[in-house]
């Protein structure tokens, strides 16, 4: 009888280890050693900002992050990018899952209570993405229309409260579902930062389909999210950002990632001239 229980457990155990073993083969392939490693949180689903393209990562956030990390002494091959979804950025930083976050992360007082910010490294604004033949010209034209945003973001609720009381809100967990819905005509507009919207509008498959309305109704200062109280890193990041702007690398990164969409950012604040004090 004893053999039988062992055999029974053994079969299950074997099956399980078999699964694990075959999983490991195709799992993470990082193995290079030498130098300190750093994990940086970015978006995986925002074209032009932070996008996973096969084994590569592209976008403005990614380029800035890479530059800053190099200035902080991390070799490019030691950078690991990790997805940092909006709703989890604070938690990711709080528990050290990532060291820095470059993920269209606006500096706000509420967030400052939970995390520290370096930067800002870019100033964007909330805007609307609509179909290219749409006549919506701004947030107050949204009454009776359907607006999409992602769960855990307040941008849509703000539009409803401030501009259009009778707008209907659709919430998905990712922007890509919103874009899908906009393409299918199920919603009239998608709201978030103009940089993100421009990224979608200029994607290969969406070219000519959508337009960014171009009337921003908020100011979003993208900061580098850091663990609360990490002033040492904050100072270093600000120095690196300053160097990036001064050397012209910032403009290069912008032209490469967001330039093609024709997006015009507020010239007074972009590229950044001053940075917030590290507290």
């Amino acid at each position: 009888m004893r053999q039988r229980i062992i055999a029974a457990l053994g079969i299950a155990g074997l099956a399980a280890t078999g699964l694990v073993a075959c999983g490991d083969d195709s799992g993470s392939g990082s193995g290079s050693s030498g130098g300190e490693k750093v994990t940086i949180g970015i978006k995986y689903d925002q074209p032009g900002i932070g996008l996973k393209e096969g084994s590569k990562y592209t976008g403005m956030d990614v380029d800035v992050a890479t530059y800053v990390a190099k200035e902080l002494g991390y070799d490019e091959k030691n950078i690991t990018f990790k997805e940092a979804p909006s709703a989890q950025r604070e938690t990711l930083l709080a528990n050290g899952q990532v060291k820095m976050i470059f993920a269209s992360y606006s500096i706000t007082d509420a967030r400052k209570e939970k995390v520290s910010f370096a930067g800002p490294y870019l100033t964007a604004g909330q805007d609307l993405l609509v179909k290219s033949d749409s006549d919506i010209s701004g947030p107050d034209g949204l009454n009776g229309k359907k607006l999409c945003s992602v769960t855990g973001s307040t941008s849509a609720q703000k539009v409803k409260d401030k501009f259009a009381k009778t707008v209907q809100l659709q919430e998905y967990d990712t922007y890509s579902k919103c874009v899908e819905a906009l393409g299918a005509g199920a919603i009239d507009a998608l709201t978030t930062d103009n940089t993100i919207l421009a990224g979608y509008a200029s994607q290969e498959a969406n070219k000519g389909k959508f337009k960014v309305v171009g009337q921003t109704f908020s100011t979003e200062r993208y900061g580098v999210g850091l663990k609360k109280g990490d002033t040492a890193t904050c100072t270093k990041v600000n120095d690196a950002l300053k160097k990036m702007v001064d050397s012209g690398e910032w403009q290069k990164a912008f032209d490469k990632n967001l330039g093609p969409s024709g997006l015009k950012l507020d010239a007074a604040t972009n590229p950044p001239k001053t940075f917030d004090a590290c507290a």
Partner: protein
Amino acid sequence: MDVISEFFSEYDGLQAFRTTIYLTLLSAVFALLIGTVVAVMRVSPVRVLQVIGTAYVNIVRNTPLTLVIVFCNLGLFLQLGVALANKDSNTFINDNNFRLAVLGLSVYHASFVAEAIRSGVNTVPLGQAEAARAIGLPFLKTLRYVVLPQAFRGAIAPLGNVLIALTKNSTVASVIGVTEASAVMKVMIENRPDVLFIVFGIFAIGFVILTLPVGVLFTSMSKRLAVKR
């Protein structure tokens, strides 16, 4: 403990649980209907229907519920244009998402209902069906008057399990924007990580209250209504 009053006032937790209950009850009715049809198809004399029924169960049962519900929204509604609410209504998005979620939950759990009914059919003695045929009843009447009534009574316990699973699975409706209990808990956890355990406790107890009586009720029903043989 102010978080408990927040649950009732600011987050309207009761409304969220009401949505959970509506989702569950509506889906349960439709799942029972679809599941019965599928079960009948699987035991029918028409080969094509058998194949369709079996394929339905094997495909749906092996797909994650999350995917089924996302397909209802992205596939059925966005691509195929099947809207389940009045498009001009000013609550279209909420109504439509709710009904799409009901559809997804029904379709998914129908495969388990079909299996439960089949296990109920398993409890019906061979002689019952033979007797029905002997008095000249055709297939559908054999099922309707002889086999299914007994099968349902034999399937009460597994059907109860499906209902409990359905109650809990209704939380997945949050992925297409239905504001049920889990969606509200997610927001509350994000806003009040300091009272994490209390927040979870409230919602967990809510589900215990919803599911425990169902389990007790169905267990006692399955004993009381069992066909005496």
